[in-house]
């Protein structure tokens, strides 16, 4: 099998161009799906017989929570690639994912807290799922902090790669916390493959929201990766050309 396509893809200008073309589609489709999902979730879906309208928080909470885990996993994979092949692109993607992942983790926490108050009677309890998700946020913040603490961006990115890999142990803990401990938080049912036990008119906005959120965050990651590439390659011709082209009057 030939790896040339891979190397070409990983070359900064090629990837930059690809991202430039891909990103608007991600944002467009993602945005459309999200609008649909929120409309479906807020208006079309019937109120839950137990939780009444409070259940509608699910349409923000679950996509955010799923992304918080998926993005961390992606970050760790990038870390492995960055370390083994010393690939600049993987370093940039890793650094780009961290703030996006942190924002969705924070969102999962905030919406979870807002959901917890009416359901469990408290914004916060020291429960396994909640605590491990908080730890996930700290891990993201740790990666961001570590990255900003180094002066040389490549050294910084490789340090972040190592941290992301070690921190990965927390991801299964978040996911299985509801199984391993008797948690207040409900177990995985919706995201399980097979037959979800949720009625269809409640389910479709959720799935649309999930897909839309993944696309939306892909857009953010692509854009942030582009920024990283611009910064690191600022002395190359292709970046200078882009910079010159966007300069007003130039």
């Amino acid at each position, binding site marked *: 099998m030939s790896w040339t396509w891979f190397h070409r893809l990983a070359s900064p200008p090629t990837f930059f161009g690809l991202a430039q073309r891909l990103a608007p589609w991600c944002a467009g489709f993602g945005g459309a799906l999200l609008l649909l999902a929120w409309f479906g979730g807020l208006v079309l879906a019937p109120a839950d017989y137990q939780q*009444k309208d409070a259940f509608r928080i699910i349409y923000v909470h679950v996509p955010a929570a799923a992304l918080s885990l998926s993005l961390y996993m992606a970050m760790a994979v990038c870390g492995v690639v960055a370390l083994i092949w010393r690939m600049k692109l993987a370093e940039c993607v890793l650094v780009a994912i961290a703030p996006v992942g942190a*924002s969705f983790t924070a969102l999962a926490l905030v919406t979870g807290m*807002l959901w917890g108050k009416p359901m469990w009677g408290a914004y916060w309890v020291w429960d396994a799922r909640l605590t491990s998700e908080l730890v996930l946020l700290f891990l993201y913040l740790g990666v961001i902090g570590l990255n900003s603490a180094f002066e040389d961006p490549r050294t910084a990115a490789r340090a972040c790669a190592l941290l992301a890999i070690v921190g990965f142990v927390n991801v299964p803990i978040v996911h299985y916390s509801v199984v391993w401990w008797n948690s207040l938080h409900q177990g995985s049912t919706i995201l399980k493959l097979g037959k979800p036990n949720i009625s269809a008119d409640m389910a479709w906005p959720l799935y649309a929201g999930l897909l839309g959120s993944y696309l939306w965050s892909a857009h*953010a990651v692509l854009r942030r990766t582009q920024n990283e590439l611009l*910064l690191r390659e*600022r002395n190359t011709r292709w970046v200078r050309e882009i910079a010159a082209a966007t300069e007003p009057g130039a």
Partner: protein
Amino acid sequence: MSGYAVYVWGSFAAGLAVYLWNLIAPRLRRRATLEAIAEAQGDE
């Protein structure tokens, strides 16, 4: 919203903020980066 309005709208507002931030923050950074690069070129 069966008495849960604060929580539901609060959640969706937080969601909107995060989604918008993820759209706008990279864009602002992009502009700042390109400006800095163009400026550095001007210096030389």
